[in-house]
């Protein structure tokens, strides 16, 4: 799963080479949101929130 996030970054970099700014930007943003949600327990712990 964590490796998948690195893979998405590689795809973003390839999209930059293929001159697709909007797709690359969108994918970078999705990757950020995905990372935050995938590691939600850690994120909540930092914010001192217990579910």
């Amino acid at each position, binding site marked *: 799963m964590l*490796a*998948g996030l690195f893979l998405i*970054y590689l795809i973003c970099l390839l999209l930059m080479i293929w001159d697709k700014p909007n797709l690359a930007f969108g994918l970078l943003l999705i990757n950020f949101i995905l990372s935050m949600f995938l590691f939600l327990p850690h994120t909540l712990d930092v914010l001192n929130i217990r579910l």
Partner: protein
Amino acid sequence: MANFQRLLNLLFIFVLFLVLLGGYIYQYVKGVDPCPLCLLQRLGMVGVAASILMNCRFGIKPQYYGLAILSALFGRLFSLRQIAMHVCPEFPAFGQDVLGFELYVWAYVVFSCSIFACAILLILYGFTKHKDFPPVWGMAEKSAFWAIFLIAAGNLLTTFLECGFTACS
């Protein structure tokens, strides 16, 4: 002014590349496998570098700086999490220290400096008269791209070998 901003963007990318490369060298020289939180911090650094690279590839735009700040905040969150885990005296630090600090403390410093650098670059952008930066894709930009591409590919490979398809947590 435009060339100065391009130069700062390139410098920013190369500094992040050197930090990531340093982490890699540390991993192999000291033989310390990175923990899941360390990998998340590397993910954040690659994210910052990729966002700043967008400025080099497609011309400088504030939304790319915004994305870099988000990635830096993401990485900073996880380095803070790791600092908080090891801050108690009876809880041993993870790995060996570099120049008196553990790597996750350095990661926190790098992310904080990244946010500071983005703020300065945004201020410089705000003071620029002609905001339509044509993209420049020269030798230096291509080198920065391949440096980040190779470090991201290397991290993908080592993360996959260490964690497989799991969340690694």
